């Protein structure tokens, strides 16, 4: 027996053993979180849900404190810039300048591509540009668009909304960079489906530049952060705020967060374990529909209070630059704005590149250009509308509403103008949260597969569902902190790789844009389309 084990050890590459050990550590940490700590709490007092849920919360807080030390050390003293946020800002600014404001230059072309003007059935890949964008958007447009903005305004003042918009604008360029790489280094599998994303472009792209070791290291690092990060940004935060939005209109649920958590976990479980594949298509239709309804409601609120609009926009802009606006000063607003924007539109995190890799095209840059619409739609458009509604209605500044945060603050703001709108927010929030959770379980699963192979995927799914429950029962504070850190940590290996390959991205982009201008890339002609119809 012992001999067999020794022999087995020889077969396993060393890296694999390390990864497995690491996986076990992470796993046991999470298991401790969901299994052991609640049990300890239950032994104390089985009747009080506070003890049971409090134990979980204390543990999440414990992890957050350790992670804070690693990723959040502040550069420039007490009120300085947290390292990881600065990293994101640098990434977004760098690519905006390096790619010469491609977010403005290629905007119209992006819309043309999404409208199908350049689609060709003969190219490799799974879905059209429009379909890939819709799939990626169902991951980005989450409850963050409703709740995240409110959180930003609560923490950083109305000025944070300005910086969110700015972050969305600059993030368009980093999104283009990562999605171009995602397309370029994707893998087409024998069944025709595509494998892509940072794991692929970090390892394959950097190894093509003679940095195979670095590439593999960054890819592994990304996969670890993504597998864990998917449990925060794409899971616990969504579950938490979905509960906030729903219990806001169904007050009897307030003390039944565990029940909500179980129901939510059951729904998500039906999809990701039960394999109800078609739900993806349903989400692909429902999420855009909800987004449109939500945007129309925002416009309605704005229209009703039109005279106050200029002063609301004025408040957002002046507080963005007014250092006395809040405790953290202007830097506080910038930090909060960039953080919430990245959290919402995922620019720089690399996750969306996984979905965008599936687009059918032979021009990697083309899908990158499509991807730059994502931060625009998500942050500059939807988040901004939420922000204007919150500032316009003034609920955030009302001292009697000081304890409202996240989804509840947004709901209260809408209720000023449309009394029944909190119900719409509850439904929209619930749907956004579910579709985002399903999308992120896909991203997390891809990362998990990269680390541990396909045979252990069910382990990941079980952890994911446990976290849906944890997210529903724990308070916003620790959930938000954990989600933030793990999501932003993904930008560390991802942007590092993008920086190293920025020369390549710029060259590919220049070549694409010059071919586009010269007219040699004319939209596909009609005969080619008739082939598709047959």
């Amino acid at each position, binding site marked *: 027996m012992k001999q067999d084990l020794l022999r*087995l050890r020889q077969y396993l590459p060393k890296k694999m053993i390390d990864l497995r050990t690491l996986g076990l550590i992470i796993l046991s940490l999470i298991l401790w979180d969901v299994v052991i700590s609640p049990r300890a709490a239950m032994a104390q007092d089985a009747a009080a849900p506070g003890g049971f849920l409090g134990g979980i919360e204390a543990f999440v807080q414990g992890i957050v404190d350790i992670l804070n030390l690693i990723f959040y050390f502040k550069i420039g003293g007490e009120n300085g810039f947290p390292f990881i946020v600065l990293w994101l800002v640098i990434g977004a600014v760098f690519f905006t300048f390096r790619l010469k404001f491609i977010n403005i230059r290629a905007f119209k072309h992006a819309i043309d591509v999404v409208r199908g003007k350049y689609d060709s059935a003969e190219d490799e890949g799974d879905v059209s540009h429009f379909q890939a964008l819709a*799939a990626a958007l169902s991951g980005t447009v989450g409850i963050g668009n409703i709740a995240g903005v409110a959180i930003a305004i609560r923490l950083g003042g109305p000025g944070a909304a300005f910086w969110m918009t700015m972050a969305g604008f600059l993030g368009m360029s980093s999104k283009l960079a990562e999605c171009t790489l995602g397309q370029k280094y994707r893998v087409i599998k*024998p*069944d025709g*489906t595509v494998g892509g994303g940072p794991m692929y472009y970090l390892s394959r792209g950097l190894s093509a530049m003679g940095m195979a070791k670095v590439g593999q290291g960054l890819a592994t690092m990304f996969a670890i952060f993504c597998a864990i990060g998917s449990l925060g940004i794409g899971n616990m935060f969504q579950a938490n705020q979905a509960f906030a939005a729903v219990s806001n209109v169904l007050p009897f649920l307030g003390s039944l967060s565990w029940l909500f958590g179980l129901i939510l976990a059951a729904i998500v479980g039906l999809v990701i374990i039960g394999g109800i*594949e078609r739900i993806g298509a349903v989400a692909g239709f429902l999420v855009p529909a909800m987004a449109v309804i939500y945007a129309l409601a925002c416009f309605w609120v704005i229209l009703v209070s039109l005279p106050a609009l200029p002063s609301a926009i004025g408040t957002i802009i002046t507080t963005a630059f007014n250092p006395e606006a809040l405790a953290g000063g202007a830097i506080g607003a910038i930090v909060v704005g960039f953080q919430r924007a990245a959290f919402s539109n995922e620019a720089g995190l690399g996750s969306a590149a996984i979905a965008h890799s599936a687009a059918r095209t032979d021009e990697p840059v083309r899908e990158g250009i499509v991807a730059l619409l994502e931060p625009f739609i998500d942050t500059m458009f939807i988040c901004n509308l939420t922000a204007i509604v919150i500032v316009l209605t003034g609920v955030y500044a009302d001292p009697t509403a000081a304890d409202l945060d996240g989804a509840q603050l947004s709901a209260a703001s809408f209720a000023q103008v449309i009394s029944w709108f909190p119900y719409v927010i509850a439904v929209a929030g619930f749907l956004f949260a579910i579709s985002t959770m*399903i999308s992120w379980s*896909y991203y997390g699963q891809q990362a998990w597969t990269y680390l541990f192979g396909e045979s252990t995927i069910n382990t990941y799914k079980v952890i994911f569902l446990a976290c849906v429950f944890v997210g529903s029962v724990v308070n916003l504070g620790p959930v938000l902190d954990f989600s933030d850190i793990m999501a932003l940590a993904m930008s560390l290996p991802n942007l590092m790789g993008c920086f190293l390959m920025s020369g390549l991205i710029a060259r590919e982009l220049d070549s694409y844009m010059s071919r586009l201008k010269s007219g040699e890339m004319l939209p596909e002609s009609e005969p080619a389309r008739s082939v598709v119809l047959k």
Partner: protein
Amino acid sequence: MSWLKKESVLVPIDFSELSYQAIAPAKEFVESLSSLKLIHVLSPLHPADPAAMWDSPSDDERKQKVKKFMSEKLSEIGFDNISIEVAIGEPTGQIVDYAAEIKADLIVMPSHGYKGAKRFLLGSVAERVVRLSPCPVLILK
């Protein structure tokens, strides 16, 4: 010796070299190639995979592509016209079900295969097939 020959022998293929190498020993047990059946098991797509979301490629298209991919590879290594089945699901269950469906007399497979897919890692699929198979299983070393 022909009374020893088997009517139907199944070889699961996971695209690894080792699994293709199992075809030759499996051939020893049959009279003609037509008694040899191959199966490849695809994993189901995640519901949020853009391909699953828009049903493009559909399951049938995925199966067709894999069949084409496999028959090209097979004719490269000198096996033309072997029947290929492509299933979608969990590998062990699909292999065992198909073995029962075609009334296989024997399943031939390597103890562990493809590192990239890590599916046969530690021979776990082979191990489970042995446990659940309706017929004898020959594990190659």
